[in-house]
């Protein structure tokens, strides 16, 4: 019995040590683990010029328009996280799920004028699944809350430690 207990003890100790090491590593790497940054991060942590980065947020309702640049059609919209927003230009086909008020992740480069030239636009789906009839009924009943929790959806509170300065 004692040998079994010793083995169990060693196993638990190893798992606790391993778990602690993993937790510390992940905490240290937290800043590098983000798939995208929020528009309000751009001012405090500006990306290096000439480097591609991803920005995530909701497509600002009413901001989507098509313009022409050098004779080619270009989609223009603004991405917001509730605190700040930034303009994005994208010459390409938007994904099916792309909608105003919905989540989006944009890969692109910051131009000198503070706007983003996108090379890839990904739609982000949220965790709600609802048939169209139910959505219509909710809208009719006036219980419709279109963009749910824009900031919280993209900035999980526990994830990014607030750094002063």
């Amino acid at each position, binding site marked *: *019995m*004692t040998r*079994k207990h010793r*083995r*169990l003890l060693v*196993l638990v100790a*190893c*798992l606790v040590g*391993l*778990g602690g090491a*993993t937790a510390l590593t*992940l905490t240290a790497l*937290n800043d590098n*683990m*983000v*798939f*995208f*940054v*929020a528009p309000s991060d751009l001012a405090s942590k500006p990306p290096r010029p000439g480097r591609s980065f991803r920005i*995530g947020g909701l497509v600002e309702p009413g901001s989507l328009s098509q313009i022409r640049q050098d004779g080619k059609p270009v989609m223009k919209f603004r991405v917001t996280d509730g605190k700040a927003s930034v303009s994005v230009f994208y010459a390409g086909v*938007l*994904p*099916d*799920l*792309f*909608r105003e008020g*919905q989540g989006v*992740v944009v890969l692109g480069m910051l131009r000198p004028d503070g706007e983003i030239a996108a090379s*890839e*636009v*990904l*739609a*982000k*789906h*949220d*965790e*709600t*699944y*609802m*048939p*169209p*009839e*139910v*959505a219509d009924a909710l809208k009719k009943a006036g219980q419709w809350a279109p963009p749910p929790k824009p900031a919280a959806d*993209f*900035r*999980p509170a*526990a*994830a990014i430690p607030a750094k002063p300065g």
Partner: protein
Amino acid sequence: MKSSPTIAPRPGHILHRFANPGRFLRLASVVQPWLTGVTLVLVVIGLGWGLFIAPEDRFQHDAMRIIYVHVPAAWLASAGYFGLALCSALSLVWRHKLADLAAAEISPVGAAITTLALASGSIWGKPMWGAWWVWDARLTSVLVLFFLYLGHIALVRAFDDPERGQRAGAILALVGVVNLPIIKFSVDWWNTLHQPASITLTGASMDKGILWPLLISMLGFSLGFAALVMARLRAAVMEWRIRSLLLARTREHR
């Protein structure tokens, strides 16, 4: 302290009773047809309801129906690994032969279901997100899980002495268990493209008409996973017995 010879029931006692390979074979031959039958019924109901009858999503339309395969597969990728880690702990600490054999039989099934989760997610991702694959925390951690399964499959079978392979595989499986909370909470801890969980302990952000077939499908897939592992484990126990018999006979004749 010396352990005194007591007959009082010990904590490991009940485990030993169920870990007896002979008892397992007798029990499994009764349970197997029922498990397989209920699996087939539930999977047919869950998938039939989900794919043909359940309402579509307001934004994703019919593309969202892949959740009836993707969510059960992704759930089982993690749950199966938890089972693998449990068997590994039993085999390392209590040295159960059945746990050794079970661990070796779980990992191929787990690798297959993880492949299904990754592939179905990818097929959904292209039309919905606009990309087959992104290196966000959820997708990457599930890919790591897939490699852990592959590593376990290879390691268990890499030694001439099966016991050494099982020992090494058990250690690998237990080291990999830190990946499970990472997979689960990746969508909460970091910015990911993958959406957070729809079904939580407090409720579901899903319409009931979508949720019910999904739950039935998840139950069906889970029982199917158990049925597959049980069938493989029965074969493994018999194979192990035959090998021991042959070994004993060759020793006799020498």
